[in-house]
């Protein structure tokens, strides 16, 4: 028996820490079938091996690693085109699988997950849902393989929650449109080759004047401005987009002229659902750090985990995670069955994001002084978690969407 323990620790050190403790393996069976569980295990292994080792450095240097191409590696693992048709290299699966992937990537690195979500859902999935055949053939294969990075831009410096009041305009010219204006908060903006941009083809028609366009890096008149210096999600490059008489050909309209608001709003529902898996991963990452810590760290001659206050905290963290998880995956299943309810899509991210911030705060608290130094990841987890209360529609907007719908019914 002694050799068993010794061999185990040698094996553990020799093989890179490939698998972290699978914490919620009991209740996962409530949410997933066998195949989904297998997938979750597999992505988890991949994310912990390939992405997690870079997480701290990505945050410190505010950029993706230069020595490995994470986009390509995720592409090789077939993670980008989960919801895209097989003919373009996708998997033709649904949002449940996409959320599973998003959660496990987020568990490894919040920044990588956010960029991944913007690429695979905001850009790729919008092309899948709204693109015509030639657009899909032109843009999807490289995006799905990870050779190209995708992005989406709707917000502007003066149009965030009030996105419909956007000023970026697209004036009709011979053969296409000239776009003028600025876009703000564009995730992947600095590195994206393919961007979906919303602009007003009719500035007097309010929401009915919005059109969605596919922009390519290198188009004359399109440039990116400063990379933003963010509180969290550092490394998930975000920047301002600048359009100065940028000519976009007619065939680059995504959907129909003047119908951009439908592309935008329906896309937002699914964006909220998939991104809701981001805070789930962060909450899981918090437990991954806190549980071993409270078993090891002793005060007053006993492990921290024997004290009721700490037990209370981890119980709250655990139930917040599990309940948010149940909500997210149930809604994902419904969306896969074709029933997309904006209230629930907004509800999942409203719920998960706010819980994640609280869980991250408690994670710092459980670690005490150690939680306050950057040697431990808990600080980064809090900074990353906070974004999810703001991006993809602030918590306030989400509440408004849900409340307004309930009032109408």
């Amino acid at each position, binding site marked *: *028996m*002694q*050799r*068993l*323990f010794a*061999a*185990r620790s040698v*094996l*553990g050190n*020799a*093989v890179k*820490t490939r*698998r*972290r*403790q*699978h914490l919620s*393996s*009991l209740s996962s069976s409530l949410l997933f079938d*066998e*195949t989904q569980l*297998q*997938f979750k295990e*597999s*992505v988890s*292994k*991949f994310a912990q091996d390939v992405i997690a080792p870079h997480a701290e450095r990505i945050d410190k240097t505010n950029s993706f690693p230069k020595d490995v191409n994470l986009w390509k590696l995720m592409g090789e*693992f*077939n993670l980008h085109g*989960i919801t895209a048709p097989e003919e373009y290299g996708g*998997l033709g*699966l649904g949002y449940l*699988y996409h959320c599973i992937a998003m959660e496990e990537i987020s568990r490894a690195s919040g920044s990588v997950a956010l960029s991944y979500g913007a690429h695979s859902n905001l850009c790729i999935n919008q092309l899948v849902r709204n693109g015509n055949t030639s657009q899909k053939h032109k843009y999807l294969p490289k995006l799905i393989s990870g050779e190209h990075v995708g992005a989406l831009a709707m917000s502007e410096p003066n149009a965030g929650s009030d996105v419909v009041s956007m000023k970026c305009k697209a004036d009709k010219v011979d053969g296409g449109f000239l776009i003028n204006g600025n876009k703000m908060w564009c995730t992947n903006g600095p590195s994206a080759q393919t961007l979906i941009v919303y602009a007003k083809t009719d500035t007097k028609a309010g929401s009915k004047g919005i059109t969605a366009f596919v922009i390519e890096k290198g188009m004359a008149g399109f440039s990116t401005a400063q990379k933003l210096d963010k509180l969290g999600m550092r490394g998930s490059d975000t920047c301002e987009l600048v359009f100065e008489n940028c000519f976009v050909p007619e065939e680059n309209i995504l959907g129909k002229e003047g119908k951009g608001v439908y592309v935008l709003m329906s896309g937002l529902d699914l964006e909220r659902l998939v991104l809701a898996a981001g805070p789930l991963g962060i909450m899981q990452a918090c437990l991954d750090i806190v549980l071993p810590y409270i078993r090891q760290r002793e005060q007053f001659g006993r492990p921290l985990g024997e004290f009721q206050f700490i037990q209370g905290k981890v119980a709250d963290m655990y139930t917040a995670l599990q309940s948010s998880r149940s909500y997210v995956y149930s809604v994902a299943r419904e969306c896969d069955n074709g029933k997309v309810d904006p209230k629930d899509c907004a509800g999942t991210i409203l719920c998960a994001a706010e819980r994640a911030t609280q869980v991250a705060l408690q994670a710092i608290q459980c670690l005490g002084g150690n939680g306050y130094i950057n040697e431990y990841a808990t600080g980064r987890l809090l900074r990353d978690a906070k974004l999810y209360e703001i991006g993809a529609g602030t918590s306030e907007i989400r509440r408004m969407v849900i409340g307004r719908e309930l009032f109408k019914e």
Partner: protein
Amino acid sequence: MKILVAVKRVVDYAVKIRVKPDKTGVDTQNVKMSMNPFCEIALEEALRIKEAGFAKEVVAVSIGPSQCVDTLRTGLAMGADRGIHVEASYSFLPLTIAKILKSLADVENPGLIFLGKQAIDDDCNQTGQMVAALLGWPQATFASKVVVLDKDKQSATVDREVDEGLETLSVDLPAVITTDLRLNQPRYATLPNIMKAKSKPIKKMTLEDLKVDIKSDIEIVEVTEPPKRKSGVIVSSVDELIYKLKNEAHVV
């Protein structure tokens, strides 16, 4: 050529082991189980040999309760072509496993049998060697490199990790190879392959089908945890150290 790979379902290597209160074994209730890491390496090597064109089929086999099917599914998701599940309600010791694998080999006629060098639960490091002996086949254990020479020659060159360093053997096929840690880095099961694996066949077999006698000459009497590590003692002289090593620790 067909390659048979034996994969064992064991307690996941990251799990903290607890001995059952009745001391009959290790607690496996509600504990995460996975494919033995050395078996993963064995399967990976078999898949690489197939991809290099030296084998037509990779068959994964697991012996144990119904949950072994999960382990086989992982193997199929990695790329094995089909699986065989030999039903057994409790865990067998290496000799019985070896007899079962020999019976299977008589039926399947593989050109190579790959196993992990040992399982991380019992650390026996016996099964591969026993299978080779029962079949009368050559064996190359602790493989850190395997090269299958051309199909006509029907032999393989294996580098073995031994105490003195590396030993290179040439074995005629059919042969048994057990895999060591540094042989390869097993691939991940990607989602398309997990999906494909759902339709790959897993054949169920019983011990009666294979006509194997499972009577074991070994009985596990007791399983206990190793004694807790005691703190050290500071000695004041070399003489005292030698005295303690001789009379207290009994190692000299």
